């Protein structure tokens, strides 16, 4: 069994937690360990609960997992909410100057580790509040047996622009945290790590979309900020000049996509990225690119919908929208990259397909894939990627006769001349047109001309599908159960299968990357041989299962669905698969943990965050017609019982808040 260790950091937005997470991750990735992290954040700039997990392992890991060995709590809230998740043998590290860690919150075999930050750093000058994190990191280095020098090196790089004095101060703080821990605590990690020494890059999907685009020769990027696509814009804005790229922030997504198409039409490799709401505004233009046969790459990074939805949370709920984008039938490609490295290659491939087949390529990602950072193999990203521009007409001698921009060819691909090529002038019209570009929509709409030009355009899809690698079944063919996923869930499904296997349940896995065109024949052939089919999707209505049925006639037996904003973790999928195999119906009741989370929500919205949930018990609903969770709320500071909250087990309705004492003054 490979060694692994997961550290959680909980705090408020503005506590600088993501920086600390990065420092921690880089300090080990530079020494050759694998890291996969996930930041569960909120749509506020200050305050709001932030929960970051950093999973460190000697072997490649495919998700942030579902274990927790060490919790760094930066506020009371984090202790309360996450201390119960720490595994036996683990610990909770917290700033004891600021709050306490109630031992009743800890599971068996979990120890509280107080850090009196003021005392530890009293000789180190004036501390910024955020430096408490560095003290904690120092302690973590000791507890998890990490490499002190490596972390000091990351701090040195981080503060390089602030000068040696700042670097020295930070390293001293780190040392103080380390020394304090060494004197009083024992390491949680049993053995030393096997550091391979290979420096692994630590990157997010969005960074690799951007890097992939640049490597593929993208010269134009337009965008309007929208979480979780904005970090592509930020990356492009800070690297654009160095990489010779025009980066334009526009007034809205209408402008974004039309500008990219304008650039694509003129002959530049152009890309834009957005999330569901922005993509909705782009749809008309995407059909335009299909109609006028202009290459463009559009990345849709899904977040929880509908409407503004849950901006900082993940979902795979836009499949229907991306598939259904724009009126009419037109050729286009939809690719759902399956992991971080794949974000790079899918982008490279998208530009080639877009230009070779002169069509829009839509990449569908999601917050999890786009924003979670992980280590990637250093040689997994080659720079000299293939650049295939398709059939281009560079000159058109006079004797050639008229140049036909939309020439009807057997492949459907009409050699493309870029505007500015003498002798090839043409009009690209969004109205239906003939081979030469003359519109057929006004004076007389010639039915056969329309039919043939439509067939020509759609013919291109036959060429596209021949280029795409068909999906393969992973795992034993005769396994009793098949998990089917698409896009970002590839890694977590793989790890769920490992959990199942550890419990003696064999399974296999079919993962779809190319949504459209779809390998219907290959998929049908594979699934026909499989036994119980379970779809795994991060949305409410199993959008992909419906699409699969439309394409193959195959219906999954059941779907494992998640739409609460948080990504799947391996155990959730494994447990649900077991439930399905046992023939148990799905249970959508409010669980005890749910009731506790709902109580936190109530405390925030009604009780000024002054209380916290304590005892929770199930009770008869009497007049409510359903059972209730009775959640006792206690004062955060004194622990004094404040009253009881009644939550419907079926509906999740908060029926009553019954205070015991008079309202606080």
């Amino acid at each position, binding site marked *: 069994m490979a060694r692994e260790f997961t550290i959680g950091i909980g705090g408020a937005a503005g506590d600088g937690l993501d920086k600390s997470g990065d420092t921690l991750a880089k300090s080990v990735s530079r020494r050759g360990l694998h890291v996969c992290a996930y930041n569960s954040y909120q749509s506020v700039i200050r305050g709001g609960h932030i929960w970051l997990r950093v999973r460190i392992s000697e072997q490649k890991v495919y998700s942030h997992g579902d274990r927790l060995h060490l919790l760094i709590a930066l506020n009371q809230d984090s202790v309360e909410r996450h201390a119960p998740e720490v595994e036996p043998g683990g610990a909770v590290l917290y700033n004891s100057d600021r709050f306490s860690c109630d031992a009743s919150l800890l599971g068996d075999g979990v120890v509280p580790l107080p850090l009196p930050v003021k005392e530890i750093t009293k000789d180190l000058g004036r501390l910024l509040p955020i430096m408490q994190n560095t003290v904690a990191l120092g302690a973590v280095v000791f507890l998890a047996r990490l490499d002190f020098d490596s972390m000091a090196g990351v701090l040195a790089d981080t503060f390089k622009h602030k000068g040696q004095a700042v670097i020295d101060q930070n390293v001293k703080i780190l040392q103080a945290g380390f020394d304090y821990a060494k004197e009083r605590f024992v390491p949680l990690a049993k053995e030393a790590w096997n550091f391979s020494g290979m420096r692994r890059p630590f990157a997010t999907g969005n960074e690799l979309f951007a890097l992939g685009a640049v490597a593929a*020769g993208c010269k134009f990027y337009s965008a309007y900020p929208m979480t979780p696509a904005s970090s592509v814009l930020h990356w492009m804005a800070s690297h654009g000049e160095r990489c010779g790229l*025009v980066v334009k922030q526009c007034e809205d997504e209408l402008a974004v996509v*039309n*500008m990219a198409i304008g650039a694509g039409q003129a002959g530049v490799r152009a890309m834009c990225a957005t999330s569901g709401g922005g993509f909705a505004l782009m749809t008309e233009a995407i059909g335009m690119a299909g109609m006028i046969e202009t290459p463009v790459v559009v990345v849709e990074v899904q977040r929880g919908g509908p409407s503004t939805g849950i901006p900082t949370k993940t979902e795979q709920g836009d499949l229907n929208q991306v598939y259904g984008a724009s009126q009419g039938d037109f050729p286009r490609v939809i690719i759902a990259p399956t992991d971080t490295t794949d974000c790079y290659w899918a982008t490279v491939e998208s530009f080639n397909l877009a230009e070779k087949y002169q069509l829009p390529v839509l990449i569908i990602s999601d917050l999890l894939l786009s924003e979670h950072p992980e280590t990637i193999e250093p040689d997994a990203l080659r720079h000299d990627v293939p650049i295939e521009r398709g059939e281009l007409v560079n000159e058109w001698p006079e004797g050639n006769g008229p140049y036909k921009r939309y020439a009807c060819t057997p492949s459907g691909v009409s050699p493309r001349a870029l*505007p500015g090529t003498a002798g090839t002038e043409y*009009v*690209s019209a*969004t109205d239906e047109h003939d081979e030469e570009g003359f519109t057929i929509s006004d004076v007389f709409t010639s039915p056969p001309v329309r039919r043939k030009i439509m067939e020509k355009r759609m013919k291109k899809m036959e060429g596209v599908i021949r280029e795409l690698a068909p999906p393969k079944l992973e795992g034993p063919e005769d396994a009793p159960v098949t998990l089917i996923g698409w896009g970002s869930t590839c890694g977590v499904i793989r790890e769920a299968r490992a959990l199942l296997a550890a419990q003696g349940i064999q399974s296999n896995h079919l993962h779809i990357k190319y949504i459209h065109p779809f390998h219907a024949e290959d998929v049908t052939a594979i699934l026909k041989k499989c036994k119980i089919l379970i779809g795994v999707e991060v949305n409410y209505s199993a959008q992909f299962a419906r699409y699969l049925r439309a394409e193959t006639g195959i219906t999954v037996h059941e779907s494992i669905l998640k739409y609460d904003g948080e990504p799947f973790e391996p155990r959730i999928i494994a447990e649900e698969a077991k439930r399905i195999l046992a023939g148990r119906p799905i249970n959508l009741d409010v669980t005890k943990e749910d009731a506790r989370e709902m109580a936190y929500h109530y405390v925030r919205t009604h009780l000024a965050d002054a209380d916290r949930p304590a005892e929770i018990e199930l009770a008869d609903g009497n007049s409510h017609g359903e059972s209730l969770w009775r959640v006792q709320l206690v004062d955060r500071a004194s622990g004094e019982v404040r009253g009881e909250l009644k939550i419907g087990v079926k509906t999740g309705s908060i029926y009553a808040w019954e205070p015991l004492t008079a309202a606080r003054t």
Partner: protein
Amino acid sequence: MATTAMPPAAPKKVNRVGLEPADYKGNRSTLCAGCGHNAISERIIEACYELGVEPYRVAKLSGIGCSSKSPAYFLRSSHGFNAVHGRMPSVATGTVLANRAIMALGVSGDGDSASIGIGQFVHLMRRNLPCVYIIEDNGCYGLTKGQFSATADLGSKLKTGVVNDLPPIDTCALAIQLGATYVARSFSGDKKQLLALLEGALVHRGTAMLDVISPCVTFNDHEGSTKSYSYVKDHDEPLSDVSFVPYFEDITVEYEPGTSTEIALPDGSRLVLKKLRTDYDPHSKVEALRLLTESHDKGEIVTGLFYIDTERPNFLDLLNVVDEPLATLPESRVRPPQSALNEVMDSLR
């Protein structure tokens, strides 16, 4: 075989790049006979011929509408891009950024620019993107059968008797305020003025916005409409008498001193404004905006060059785009240097 003796052909009239007027024509117009948009197409043909514009260097960009169809009716051998409704400005921006060697000639309608596309319109003006931006302004949506657009005047009447009760958007005032650097209004029926303003616009190096009142004979040319031929003729108040003198023609225009202003354009051509209104300074934004507001209150339709600024950097200058068109960079230069990519990878570790 019998041959018939042909009279020797008269020498063809050609311009400085050796092209005939016919080379600047387009397909036969499918717009209504008498539509103002047709007259504008003719002026564009004349202007490009006279200036000796090379058609293959021009990209005609438009949205959707009768006006947006008109690029099919001029410059047959130029590239065209009919985008979707209201999106010409962003398509034009993308095109110009991708290939700075292209002369962008945008043609839009008042519905295309001032209604559905106003967001795009204002942002293009802010950019001062090098392009000519023509609004063929008929105060209505011709292609969808004559409903009011956002430039319809207060009190103007539809054929059906419906009266417009909202104030118009003055696209010239907006353009001036937002940063366009060549802003004029003209009338499709005023051949001389429109031609000169178009020629000036074609050599300008920033956004040249021309709002050309262009009556819709089918839906908005009746009694009670403020965009009809007769109404516009009666209320047209030219600001000056405009002449354009191209750099390659050695012409001196004689005017009595003090009655005219000469404006040097970037390529050495000149615009000569013989003032009908004394004291009007086309370099002043404040004056331009006052003029537009006052004349509007008086119910006059002032035409002419309202504002020009040949100094303000255009969008390409500001973005530091390389001189070579991005669209035609060789493959070796399309990729960033290996060193840049290595730097990026290092920053991730």
